[in-house]
């Protein structure tokens, strides 16, 4: 149990590092520090989707409802992080480009991921029978998962046709010096550990709520 306590301490160091230790990138001023929180959220949103799709495949192969339960839990946490990533992304965009939304490649990919999560849960709520719900939701998450990598090639095209001027894309690559990089990757590791802890918590909660009190009747 001690690692949970350590994770708490570790995250405190990450926040302190983000605010005090890491320098700011030129041209972005203090807002560079958003990097340490926004990007991990976006990464967890994608990781959660990968985990959910993996459990969906295992559900289809094994028909074991536990797999579907894990897939849904991962998707739910993924949705939370996708919303956080979208909100923090648009705040950051407002600071740098003075507009909350301008279809920058990263913003659009995260938004499309949000659409996929929304569709996944809409499908789940449209089916009553548990096994059918699990089966169809798993298939959808696998199909959606296969299309996500295409977004990496495709979304820049969207921007190119909407924002031909190159100004927007300068911020694509941020050169990080060693101090910034350590805090950045440290935050990545911290958030990933946090995600798996939350996933564990969610799965246990749902499993507990399904437990049946076995009456050890004497006869």
């Amino acid at each position, binding site marked *: 149990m001690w690692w949970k306590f350590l994770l708490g301490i570790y995250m405190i160091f990450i926040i302190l590092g983000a605010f005090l230790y890491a320098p700011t990138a030129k041209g972005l001023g203090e807002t560079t520090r958003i990097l340490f929180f926004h990007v991990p959220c976006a990464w967890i949103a994608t990781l959660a989707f990968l985990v959910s799709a993996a459990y969906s495949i295992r559900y289809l192969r094994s028909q074991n409802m536990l797999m579907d339960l894990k897939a849904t839990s991962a998707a739910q946490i993924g949705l939370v992080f996708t919303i956080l990533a979208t909100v923090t992304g648009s705040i950051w965009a407002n600071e740098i480009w003075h507009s909350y939304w301008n279809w920058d490649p990263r913003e659009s990919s995260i938004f499309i991921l949000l659409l996929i999560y929304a569709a996944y849960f809409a499908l789940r709520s449209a089916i009553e029978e548990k096994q059918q719900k699990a089966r*169809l939701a*798993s298939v959808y998450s696998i*199909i*959606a998962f296969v*299309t996500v990598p295409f977004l990496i090639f495709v979304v820049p095209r969207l921007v190119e*046709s*909407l924002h031909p001027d190159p100004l927007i894309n300068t911020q694509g690559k941020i050169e990080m010096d060693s101090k910034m990089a350590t805090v950045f990757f440290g935050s990545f590791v911290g958030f990933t550990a946090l995600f798996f802890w939350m996933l564990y918590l969610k799965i246990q909660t749902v499993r507990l709520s399904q437990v049946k009190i076995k009456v050890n009747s004497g006869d």
Partner: protein
Amino acid sequence: MVKRTFMLVYNSLIVFQKDVQLEFRTRFSINAIILFAITTLTAISFSVGPAKLDITILSALLWIILFFSAMTGLSHIFVREEEQQTADTLRLVTSPLAVFLGKWLFNVVLLFALEIIIVPLFFILMNTSGGNSNLLLMVLFLGSLGLSTVSTIIAAIISQASARGALFAVLAFPISLPIIITSIHGTRLALEGNSVSTGFSDLQILISFFIVILTVSILTFEFIWKSN
């Protein structure tokens, strides 16, 4: 192994032929899809009036019309089977893959039939020239191939769920975004008269997306079709 694939192709063609026969009797999907496309097109061209729209907007409009026409007509092929309780009869007589390929072929042909009517009409009503027409035709061909595949597999999913109509566009839109975005970009290049080679990267994306989505649909359809 060869005999099995021959049987599969043969059965898919029979399913396709049955669906075409049924479609000619009711003409339900074809009417829905063409009427929708024409009304949307006339509404747009009416509201735009004589103004000449810039090419990016035109290509976006074309693909929006095609996407939402697909959303109106391409789900009937599965929804009708479930609603009229003929799906179980079909489950008894042939393999899931034959059903999928037969119905997929039907949706591909249906979308092409729509495009043969709508695309020329689009260029007339929007009074624009076709630009580099063979690039345009390639983008249209590959784009609608991918779009009908996505629509078929998503139609199969929603035919098993309740609240079918609304769910179709919600589920299909994020999945078909790569097609829509790339096709809009490709159409824009074509309308600007670029050569096929400039648009080649778009065509590559469309082809690879189509192959990936068709493969994953074939692998997963069996789980959709067989109720447990």
